[in-house]
């Protein structure tokens, strides 16, 4: 099958498309496809020309770390858990996440995610457990906190979001979920956190919810939003 990849040598050079012919095995993921192209004595494009190895970031290779986030056939996804058998069409296109500066080929610089969380003082400090009289409700809250803390900070939710541009004012779903986690684990911080949530998420989010569709951890962002709004309502 033809695999088309948007490549870029470094931050200062222009991107270009390069295609490869790859023998695809059953059960191969996009990470496997990239390995398949790279791990040869020579890397050869579809015209038989020698080219360089494709740069891409990986760490766990099993959907637990978020390193290999990229755009596959137009959909933001993790390369290591996107199966070739689930892709439609005669060719596969792969390009880097567009909302972050490219460092090399499919490797992007997602530093801004962490910078924004730092700017917003996103930390729990000291956990204060809230004992709810209704055990079921308490369990549900705990379950949701567990889900929110699974966020990989991979940036897929930002890539797909119609409201996220460059991270200067709107910080996206990963920020909203962290807001929920912090304010629910330490309610003494919730006033401050809810305020920045409103400023950098709530007032701009157009509720497309495409973030939930691409989240590799399936974090229910909508529920985080509802819970924060409820907290904010009780306070105002």
């Amino acid at each position: 099958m033809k695999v088309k990849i948007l490549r870029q040598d470094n931050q200062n050079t222009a991107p270009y498309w390069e295609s490869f012919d790859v023998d695809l095995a059953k059960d191969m993921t996009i990470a496997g496809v990239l390995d398949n192209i790279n791990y040869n004595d020579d890397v050869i494009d579809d015209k038989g020309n020698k080219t360089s190895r494709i740069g891409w970031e990986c760490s766990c290779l099993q959907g637990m770390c978020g390193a290999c986030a990229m755009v596959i056939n137009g959909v933001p996804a993790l390369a290591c858990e996107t199966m070739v058998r689930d892709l439609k069409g005669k060719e596969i296109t792969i390009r880097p996440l567009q909302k972050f500066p490219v460092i090399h080929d499919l490797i992007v610089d997602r530093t801004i995610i962490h910078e924004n969380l730092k700017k917003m003082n996103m930390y729990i400090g000291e956990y204060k457990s809230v004992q709810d009289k209704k055990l079921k409700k308490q369990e549900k809250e705990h379950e949701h906190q567990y889900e929110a803390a699974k966020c990989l900070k991979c940036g897929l939710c930002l890539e797909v979001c119609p409201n996220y541009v460059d991270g200067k004012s709107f910080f996206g779903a990963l920020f909203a979920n962290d807001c929920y986690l912090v304010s629910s684990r330490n309610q003494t911080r919730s006033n401050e956190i809810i305020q920045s949530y409103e400023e950098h998420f709530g007032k701009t989010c157009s509720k497309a919810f495409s973030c939930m569709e691409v989240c590799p951890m399936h974090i229910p962002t909508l529920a985080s939003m509802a819970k924060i709004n409820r907290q904010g309502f009780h306070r105002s």
Partner: protein
Amino acid sequence: MKEALVIGGGISGLCCAVKLAEAGVRVKIIAPYPSERSQSVMAAGGINGVLCRHDQGDSVDCHIEDTIKGGSYIAGREAVSGLCRHAEEIIEYLKKIGTVFTVDSEGAPLKRAFGGQSYKRTCFCGASSGKQIVSALVMEVRRFEVLGLIERQLWTFFHSALIRDGKCYGALIYNEKVGKIEAKYADAVVMATGGQNALFGKTTGSTQCDGYAAGQLFLQGVKLKNLEFIQYHPTTLETGQKRMLISEAVRGEGGRLFYIENSKRIYFMEEKYGPKGNLMTRDLVSREIDKVSRAGKEVFLDISFLGEKEIRRRIFEVSDLCMKYRGIDISKEPIPVAPSVHFFMGGLAVHLNHETNIRNLFAVGECASIYHGANRLGGNSLLAAMYSGMVAAKEIISRDFDEKKVDFSSEEAKENMVLQRMRDTKSQFPVMYIRDMLADTMSQNLGIVRNEESLKKGLTDLDYYLSICDRLSFDSSVSMYTNYSLKAILTLAKATLLCALHRNESRGAHFRSDYPDSNEAFAYATIIANDEGQFNIGMDKEHIYES
């Protein structure tokens, strides 16, 4: 104000950084990627600790005994005692900073059973214990980042330590964004760089853990310990991109190992060891599976009899993984399994305070070798990551550092010239090709079962790779770090083979077919030193490293 460099952003590095910052020490965390990418997030099982509400009959002493026995009696009692005695404090601390543990209705962490342990004492956070701990620690680090006490710089790679006359003054750091090496001075340097996965290519762990730091420090005179002890996990599944771990929980739930002969299932573990055969220790099960595989037969793990509903309830992650990556429905068909490299008990030799043989140079987490002896118990690695970070921080906080500063600007300039010379050349012989050959050599010759012949064959290969690696030109298709890290990784591989060759016995994860029994003369840790190019190996009989 004291300053420390922490190299690595996994759990041990984060814990150390936070504890230092709490005491007012200024910390720089050097790691190319955010902590969310560290191998720590893959630790699923949990963290061991005997808490105040423990199982009847359990005690901290029992945890200590299990750990020492699990490590085949070569881990130091004092070190292990410290580890186990602080477990409750560590779990309480993790709760306090907001880790989402799986808890009972009163908020107390639940515990699960793990191999090699007499009682249930593994606290956990669903099936993502490591990830949940990382999430909490990242936030705690951020609290000190906001205060200006911790600084994180992504895209920075460790290059080498600044060492003079047995003392460390900081490190050379390669900054990917500017393409240059920079000297970073500090009162203390803490290595938290994880295991040595890249020696074997792809393992169950992260591709980022490559052993470079241990190899480079060894070249600079830092002693290494117990390199021959490498834990193979018996049940892993081959996928298109790596071997993935099939949790021990499957065997815990009654999973049966078998192979097929004349279209009949042979339950080889049960035949040899009785009804509980499938639940033998990791090293033994790995060896038995290896034996069957060598005879050309595929081994399977069957859990289908549990039924779809119970599988979903008890081992959902395993069924999800098998379906996602291999299309295997484990409620209907067995899982094809084989052992794979999982954890490194060996690494940088450290004293009780986690300092190496170089003053002011510390090592924590998996890159340090201290608590696990010849084999590690499940649930003790997260505990050791946290504890080691705390111990190193405590030592740095209490130490008086002298004011004497040493200038390393000429070393900085020299190393930048070396990189520039590399960059100016072009190689037709890619670095990754040698890394692949190394992985083949190590997997073939330092497998679950080793012998003198295989180890010597491995050493011959390594000597060849080392002889050409200095003559290799720059491979522009991979990062500068990948280029400059090759020699140290190969050196570490050679040191590992030498240690395995030196230990003429079988103990824990080290099994020699030519010396199948353990021998009291080897009931000590192995120490390997690089004395100006000469590799000297010995046993730590005086317990210098609390072995």
